[in-house]
């Protein structure tokens, strides 16, 4: 199979898989086998593109002209390769996890869940491989819409409210700002192709470029830059596998990935650094990093805390883009991978706590390490990677981000990154530490505190919690894979780094 065919089929596979999942919906075992096979095929296809891209070529497929002069094009360049690679790999892991979680949790409408999940991954791969801004925008919107029913999966009034915030923010920003920016770019330059060095350099003046940059960055609501971050905590009403893969990897990474793409291939790093507005956005991202970390500390609901942590970490990548330096972009791109593995581990663990111990609030999780030692250990590993401590992969991306900040002469940003790491220590390590070292399982449990999983919060389970009671085996397998990933990436960050170096040109 040629590389071009592999590109074409890797876009197609998840959508076909989604149809097959619907068709096999009446038989759960068959349905989930289909989901796993689709994931495996997709990963194989994406992996088969890797050698060509790592060799420095950018294979491209043009489907057809949608508007006169504007075609649906898929071009695989290194950054897209990275994003597609982690999305398709972690999809397999999440599918394994979902089997344990969805069954263990007796979720309804599981066929719809698996089918839309596949569509969302297809959209993520479409975004990753998009060869121009129009193609990217199309899949961006497909991703928003296909994940809406996943967010509102439970159909409760709370889910409906969250769905409104989700759709309103993501659709609103993308239509009002991003689409305007895209059409404006098209009418100014006459092309939307992602081009090394950017397409706007020398074509637009300073003020126009500043407004355009603002429209792009705020129009990419999925990057959750403040003040357009509210949708992410709201989306946490979804089942945990959705929060794990979509709201820690596919959807939010699609956002920051788009920011990086725009910075590198629409504006071009050199041109971006000459626009003063990029400074303002840099400081806004820095503020998001700190504020979101502080808000995260106040959250007692574990998924909400992780959501705010994600908001904070996403802005790392926005910082990487807005630093407009080679090392900053490299750090940003690497952080997509490192944060993906770390955060998905944390969400897997959060889901394991829900499905096994029926606990969603951090204050209820004291001593949980004694009954769920494996999960809590994995949580520790994930936390260390997010904080950026060795021997976890998270170290490398933070390393390059700091180097990038130094290269750009932004001492303030270096300070922000350091402070943020300290805040991470406080709000993440609290959970495994209290889990392992606090013996008080009979801590005073505030009965009035309710949460959206209250239905499942059978607190009488506490009495029987002596001895080890771990999550369902598929969940544990998934947790093992993703937390091992964090470790492996510390020792072998090479492929990711090499790809990111290619992004910056030979």
């Amino acid at each position, binding site marked *: 199979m040629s590389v071009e065919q592999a590109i074409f089929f890797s876009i197609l596979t998840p959508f076909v898989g989604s149809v097959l999942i619907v068709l096999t919906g009446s038989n759960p075992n068959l349905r989930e086998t289909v989901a796993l096979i689709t994931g495996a095929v997709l990963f194989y296809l994406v992996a088969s593109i890797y050698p060509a891209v790592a060799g420095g070529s950018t294979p491209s497929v043009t489907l057809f002209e949608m508007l*006169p002069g504007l075609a649906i094009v898929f071009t695989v360049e290194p950054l897209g390769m990275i994003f597609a690679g982690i999305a398709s790999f972690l999809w397999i892991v999440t599918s394994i996890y979902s089997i344990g979680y969805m069954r263990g949790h007796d979720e309804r409408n599981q066929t719809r869940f698996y089918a839309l999940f596949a569509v969302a991954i297809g959209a993520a791969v479409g975004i990753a491989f998009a060869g121009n801004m129009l193609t990217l925008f*199309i899949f961006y*919107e497909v991703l928003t819409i296909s994940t809406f029913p996943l967010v509102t999966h439970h159909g409760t009034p709370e889910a409906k409210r969250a769905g*409104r915030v989700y759709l309103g923010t993501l*659709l*609103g920003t993308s*239509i009002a700002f991003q*689409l305007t920016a895209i059409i404006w770019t098209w009418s100014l330059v006459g092309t939307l192709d992602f081009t090394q060095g950017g397409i706007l350099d020398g074509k637009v003046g300073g003020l126009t470029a500043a407004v355009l940059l603002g429209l792009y960055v705020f129009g990419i609501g999925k990057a959750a830059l403040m003040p357009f971050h509210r949708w992410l905590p709201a989306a946490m009403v979804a089942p945990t596998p959705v929060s794990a893969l979509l709201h820690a990897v596919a959807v939010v990474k699609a956002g920051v990935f788009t920011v990086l793409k725009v910075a590198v291939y629409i504006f071009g790093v050199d041109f971006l650094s000459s626009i003063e507005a990029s400074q303002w956005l840099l400081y806004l991202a820095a503020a998001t990093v700190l504020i979101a970390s502080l808000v995260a500390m106040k959250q007692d609901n574990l998924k909400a805390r992780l959501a705010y942590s994600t908001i904070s970490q996403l802005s790392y990548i926005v910082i990487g883009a807005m630093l407009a330096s080679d090392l900053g972009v490299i750090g940003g791109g690497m952080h997509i991978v490192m944060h993906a593995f770390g955060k998905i581990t944390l969400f897997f663990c959060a889901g394991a706590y829900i499905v096994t111990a029926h606990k969603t609030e951090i204050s209820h999780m004291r001593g949980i390490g004694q009954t769920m030692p494996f999960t809590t250990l994995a949580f520790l590993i994930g936390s260390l990677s997010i904080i950026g401590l060795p021997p976890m992969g998270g170290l490398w991306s933070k390393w390059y981000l700091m180097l990038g900040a130094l290269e750009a002469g932004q001492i303030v940003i270096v300070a922000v990154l350091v402070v943020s790491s300290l805040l991470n220590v406080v709000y993440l390590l609290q959970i495994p530490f209290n889990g392992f070292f606090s013996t008080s399982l009979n801590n005073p449990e505030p009965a009035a505190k309710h949460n959206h999983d209250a239905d499942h919060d059978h607190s009488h389970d506490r009495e029987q919690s002596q001895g080890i009671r771990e999550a369902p085996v598929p969940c544990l397998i998934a947790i093992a894979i993703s937390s091992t990933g964090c470790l492996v990436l510390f020792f072998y960050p090479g492929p990711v780094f090499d790809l990111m170096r290619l992004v910056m040109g030979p």
Partner: protein
Amino acid sequence: MTASLFSHLPALQVVLALLAAPVCLVLRRHGAAWLIATGMTWVLLAIALTLLGRVLETGTIIYSLGGWPAPWGIEYRIDLANAFMLVIVTLIGSVVMPYARASIKAEIEEPRIYLFYCMYLLNLAGLLGIAITGDVFNLFVFLEISSLSSYVMISLGRDRKALIAAYRYLIMGTIGATFYIIGVGMMYQVTGTLNMADLATLVPDLYGNRTIMVALAFLLVGLSLKLALVPLHLWLPDAYTHAPSAVSAFLASTGTKVAVYAFARILFTIFGGSGIFDDFGLQEILVSLAIAAMIGGSAVALYQSNVKRLLAYSSIAQIGYMILGLSMASVIGMTAGLVHLFNHALMKGGLFMVMGCVFLRLGSVQIESMEGLAKRMPLTMAAFVAGGFGLIGIPLTAGFISKWYLIQGALEKGWWPVVVAILVSSLLAVIYVWRVVEAAYFKPPPKGAAEITEAPASMLVPTWVMIGLSYYFGINATLPLDIATGAAETLLGGVQ
């Protein structure tokens, strides 16, 4: 024989529909009338496609009715703009017809059903006539044929309010037609001709002549009534709400569209557009009215509890998009307006057809009675969501293409407030579409709700064909865009 038949296709396009109408009247049997009407709409679609193909191949077709040469006889002059309109009207007509059978049976009393088919064909003939003719008086005649038959069709609704709606439309429509004919009379008085091509050569020299300018005002106001441009839209919501669903679907996607075409034809082909724009501030007037329609229509749609009325107000907003595109008087703007005419016809036609399915099973189109409907009529409601995405302008829908061109046109002119207005209007569309979606998908069915099943295939299939087309032309938009660009260039360039 075939060669001569082919050369008479322009006449057949209208005459066949006119001839078939009385046949339905004589037959009086539902099944037979339906069969004839359906067959006829498909033949008309084939003719329209053939004509479009020939225009694309060989350029403008000129056909003198009865062999009398213009400017004495009536001339049919088919360029890309006409041919495009013919295809839109016949396409909608032929998709709605198979759908109408079951829908009409439920919504019109048995003894009057044959009237529907007769009036439908007459209306089709009228609309096709407006689209094809090259004579301003002939246009008036067809305008009246289509208007009168649509009054009858609206009044056929079982709801007694349909009579009032039809009556109001009749009053307003007659005023509009009167204004139009007064305008035509004044032009005739000064120029002595009714032929559009002829007028197009004479009128520019008379530029500044007071009678001609007043004539233009009368013509434009008359047509604005017909196309329901704010503030002359008041007849539309009631008419679309109370008419039988098949009628709403057909009228919403063809009636106002043809009037928009006639508006552009008069303004650009005969009066050459831009000069008047510059001297009389017509552009400012039209753009402000269009924006008022876009924002106002969408805003009022937010507060409707009857979904057909909601869609009607949405139509008013979408007509604003079309007029906005036309009044840019640039190729991109005009293309946006014309392509939106086509796209909106598909989307809104599909959505009204969805409401027909809902009405068939539920007997109501109030939002609260549609609560929990998605579980019971999944395919119907999925079609509503798909069509609603089009109104919002989500990528891959036809609505996205229209919006892309509209915004591009506005950016080209540097009209920032207009860009903002387009975006605000589409964000309002998110809200009004989502109100229905939330009711259907997130609310439990009302207590004691009747057991209902999915709409019959004879209605679902045409509905999905319509929605499917709006997606097809949203994904592969080059064909309608090329035609619309060609049509825009002809309209802007005057008659060759």
